[in-house]
Structures are given as C-alpha cells and as structure tokens.
C-alpha cells in the first residue's frame, strides 16, 4: 500500500454578501449610514452632556454631587447636590412598581386565562390604548383630581398605621408626597407592564400548560408552578422597562410632588417632601444661572447613566432567567 498523502480539503472560501453594482452599493450605503447614525446620536448625547456638565462635576466633586444634599445658587461657593433627588426618583419609582406589578399581572392573567374571548379582546384594546396616554395627561388628572383623593387615603393610612415610621406624618398635610407621586406613576406604568405580560402569557407554549393539567394540576397550581416561572424572565424585563419609564417621568411628578432639595426623605412616604431628578431639571431650568445649567446637565447625565444601568440589568436578568432558551 503506497502511503497516501493526508487528505487535504480544498481551502475554504469565505462567502461574503457584498454589493457589487452601483445601485446596490448606494442602497447598502444608505442603510449603513442610517444605522451608524444611531451610534452618532448616542455618542453625541453623552459627549455634549458630559462636556457641558463637567464644570459642575468638577466644582462639586462627583460623589458630593450624586450623594450630597442641597441645591442653592445663592450660596458662595454655589451648592449643587442631587442626593435627595436621586433617592427620591428611586423611591417614587419603587412605590409605583410595587403597586403596579400585582395589578398588571392580575389583568394580564385575567385577559389571557379567565375572560371569555370577546371580553378579553376588548380589555386588550383598552389596556393598549391606555398605555398610549401621554404622561402629561395623567399628570393633569393626578394634580387636579387624584391628589385630594389620594391624600384622603394617606390620611386614613396614617391614622391607622401611623406608628410605623413608614407611614408617619409630621406636617399634618398629606398632599404632594412620594406616596401620591408613586400612585400616579403606578397608574402610568400599569398598562405598559400589563401589555407586555399579557403578550408573554399569550406566546407561552400551550403544551406545558396541557401537561400540567393532565398531571392533575388545578388553575392555581398551574399558574404558580408552571405559568409564572416560565414567564418570569419576560415579566421581569417588562417590570424593569416600567421602572425605567418611572425614573424618567418628569411632568407628572413635577405636578404632584413637593421637591425638597436640602433634606433626604428616605422612607416617610406620606410626608409632603420628596425628590425626582427629572422634575428637578424641569423645575430649575427656567431661571437657571449658567453654573446652575451645568448642574442640571450633570443631573441629566446621572439620570441617563442610571437608566442605562437598569436596562442592562434587565437584559441580563431576562437572559439569565431563561437558560433553557438556547
């Protein structure tokens, strides 16, 4: 047997889809340019904001700016700290999410698994429509109609559970508190979370629900042990989306919350003092001095970075929570 040379496959050619004719090149070129504009826009936003914000970061110190309290342009040196505002943003957003999530999941479950077809269809359209109501309209409803009602609830809550620091109130007045702002935010994000959750429920593999029922599961055990765990990743993604929206909420919170820049309100949600970074920007913008503008830019940068981090966490959780999706 003659020794055979080891088998060598013909060299592998790389197949590339490349535009060859001029019109095609133009076509692809336009598409590429447009897509790269996304890169341009995002970088431009960060660059210009940081550029304009830099003086504020420099004069206040980064950590002081983010975590300190007090916003006073009459002092010398000028004090620009967003600590209470940043905490307030998260506090209000959290209250909103805590109220919104159980209600949103209930509606989604009701529409997908309980309601008869006709009712489900109308309810879906209603929820999707409500998700499109601009927040400024909800802010209007919040400040002129809802605030007094919610203040009444806050008063009840305080009279019964006021011994808890969470529900204490020393001002005697219950309007313009994080509690009310949180409820208004909740009203805003319930349709969003409900819409996403309902979509996830409807796209679930029916086979495993049938498997659960065939094994002797009833409605509740199927929901708790099969439907929720399988949908969990997507639902968390939807919740974080709502959270991001709540953090960026500007006008509605501005209408219903009393912004206090010098003091942190950590947990006394019935007190009429709170904060929100976006509303700070809106409030101070009109008559801001140049140095103050730099501070507002800096606040915008911090807010944007915070939402970016939350979105990244959301994507991570959604990917991790569904290891079987590979």
């Amino acid at each position: 047997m003659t020794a055979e040379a080891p088998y060598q496959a013909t060299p592998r050619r790389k197949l590339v889809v490349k535009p060859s004719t001029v019109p095609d090149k133009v076509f692809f070129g336009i598409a590429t340019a447009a897509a790269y504009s996304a890169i341009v826009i995002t970088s431009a936003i960060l660059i210009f904001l940081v550029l304009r914000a830099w003086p504020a970061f420099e004069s206040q110190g980064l950590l002081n700016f983010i975590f300190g309290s007090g916003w006073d342009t009459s002092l010398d040196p000028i004090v620009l700290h967003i600590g209470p505002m940043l905490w307030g943003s998260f506090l209000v957003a959290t209250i909103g999410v805590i109220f919104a999530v159980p209600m949103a999941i209930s509606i989604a479950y009701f529409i997908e698994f309980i309601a008869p077809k006709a009712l489900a269809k109308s309810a879906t359209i209603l929820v999707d429509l409500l998700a499109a109501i601009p927040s400024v309209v909800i802010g209007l409803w919040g400040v002129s109609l809802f605030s007094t009602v919610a203040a009444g609830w806050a008063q009840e809550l305080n009279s019964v559970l006021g011994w808890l620091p969470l529900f204490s109130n020393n001002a005697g007045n219950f309007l313009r508190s994080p509690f009310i702002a949180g409820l208004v935010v909740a009203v805003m994000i319930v349709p969003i979370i409900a819409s996403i959750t309902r979509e996830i429920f409807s796209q679930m593999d029916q086979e495993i629900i049938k498997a659960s029922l065939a094994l002797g599961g009833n409605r509740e055990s199927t929901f708790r042990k099969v439907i929720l765990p399988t949908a969990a990743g997507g639902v968390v993604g939807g919740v974080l989306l709502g959270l991001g929206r709540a953090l960026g909420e500007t006008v509605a919170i501005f209408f219903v919350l009393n912004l206090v820049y010098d003091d942190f309100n950590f947990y006394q949600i019935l007190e009429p003092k709170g904060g929100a970074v976006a509303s700070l920007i809106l409030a101070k913008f009109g008559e801001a001095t140049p140095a103050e503008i730099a501070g507002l830019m800096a606040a915008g940068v911090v807010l944007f970075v915070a939402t970016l981090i939350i979105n990244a966490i959301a994507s991570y959780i959604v990917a991790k929570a569904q290891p079987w999706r590979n």
Partner: protein
Amino acid sequence: MEKLIDLSPVERPANAQPWAKIQPRLKGVIALSSVLPAVIALAFLLISGNEFMGVLFTVFLPLQILAGGFAGFYGFGRRGILDGLLLVVTYFFATFVLVLLVSVLWSVIENGGKAISPHFFYQNNVYVDPTAPLEIGGVGHAIIGSFLIVGLATVITVPLGIATAVYITETQGKSRGLIRSLLQAMSGLPSVVAGLFIYALLIASGITQYAGFAGSLALIPLMLPTVSRVAEEALRLVPKELRNGALALGAPAWRAFLQVTLPAASSGIVTAVLLGVARVIGETAPLILTTFSANNTNLNIFEGGMSTLPTYLYNYVTMGFDTSLQRAWGAALVILILVGVLFAAARFATRSTPAPKAKKRK
C-alpha cells in the same frame, strides 16, 4: 360486522357540556360567596359612614377572600382553597385597575368636554387672558405647532428608522448587534435628557435660539428606537421565500427590497410610523427645554415661539387659574383624540395582514 349504521352527523344537543353542570349546592355556595361580602361591606359602609376605600380594603376584601376560599374548599377540598383565592384576587385587582384607568379616561372626556367647542379647535390665544372665559380662545395654534414640530421630527426619523431596520435585516453588517443594543439604550433615554441634549448642543452653544425645529430634533432620539424596532419586526415577518424568489430571478438587492420586501411589509411599516408619532405627540419635557411657548399662530419652525398641545397643557396647569385649568383639560382631550385616531389607524393598518403568532420554540 358490516351492519349498516347511520353515519351522518347528528345535531349537537343542548346538554353537550356535562362538565358545566355544577352541583346545585355548590352553585348556591358560589352565588352566596360572590354576593354576600359585597352586601355586608355595603351595609357596613352605609351604617358606619367610613371612607369607601378603607371599607373596600379592610372589610370587603378580607371577607371576599374568606368567601372565595370557602367556596373553593366546599367544592374541591383543600386544593380548592387556593383556586378560589386566585380567582378572587385576580378579579379584584383586575377590576380595580380597569376602573381606575377608565376613570382617568372618563375624567379627561368629562372635563375636557366642558372646554371644547368648535372654536376651541381653531382659535389661538392672542389677546386671550388666562382668566378669560372659555368662549374665546382655543388651541388652534398649539395644534398647528404640534403638527409642525412632530411632523418635522417624523420626516427625519421615519426614513432614518426604516433605513436602520433595513441595515439590520438586509445586510450582513458586523455592527448589527451593536446598533440594536444602542437603540435599546436610546429607548431608555429620559425625555427630559433628550431636551437637555439639544439645549446643550444648539441653544446653550449659541447656534440658535429656542425654536420649533430644536424641539423636533429633541424628539428624534425618542422616536427613533420605536420606529426602528417596529419596522425591523415588520421586515422580519416577510417570508424569506419572497425575497429569495426575487433574488433568484436576478433582481439586485435594492430592487428586491423596494419591489418585494417593502410592499409586503408596508402595513407593518405604517404601524411603525403611527406608533412612533403616538409616542412623541404627548412629550412635554423635551419641548419645554427647547421651545418657547407663544399665544399666536407661528408657522415658522425655525424662528420664534411655538406652542404645542403638551406645552400648552403644561403652561395652563402651572398658571393655576380655574379657567386656565379648564383649558388644560380641553387640550388634554384634544391630545387624547389624536392618540386615539393614531391608534385606530395603526390597528386598521395591521388588520388586513394576519399577524403570525411568533412561536418561540426550539
């Protein structure tokens, strides 16, 4: 066994659902447990005169939970308790939220309706004092302003968004993943920060004064992710066979796209545009930071103050007068009508194409 059996179909009898028959006693228990807690709570409410919400949560809800659990237990034993509870909680929350949301909708319609009249739609507010009665003045100028500013933003964003979607779906570009992530990040941009950006770029640097087009530019990063994402999905839904068929016939990529893919995805693209517009039509904060409000009708988007519906609303709320608040409600209703029309149009556009349910199965 070849006996001649009658094989023809028989009409469905009336009692073809034996599982729907519930034992009469269980039926009674269910009926009782649905009605009794409400009756008791109502009685409590009327007698004690306590506040509605308090009674709802501290009397009605616990009673209903107990009743639901009991009905479940009565019918199905221990297992049934949680079943009953789940139903009670779901019905309660779902109803609560729907009522709340519908009341928001209703209050806009009711209050806005008081301010609305034909002239409200086309008059502007020149020479109209904030405390003036509602017979004069309107949001005509704001409607035009919204139309111009959102229109300019749309004209810029839609081609950009569709072209980006084309890049993601048609080319094999290496940056596709990066672009998608960036668009995702852009969708999280707080609207006020978008306004700050344009302010920093154009106004604070002195390139321009507050003007309508600055507002349009601020709306672009808010619209782009939506338009691009929905357009991308619409393009993806077009079956690959169509495109491949065109390519196999010798069509260049651009022809295949323009003459085959795009028409097939047209309803989805229209939806993308409509949803993008609906998203930004109510945006307030970016416009406050980049435009000047005005009472007159200004058609020059590059110069001068220009009011839009959301900024009109904002201004009239912050003024604080009763009449100005009513005008704000009117503006809110106009916005709602516009959003409703856009929504109906989007649904109409997608109605003709059967949307395939994307089954994410491996």
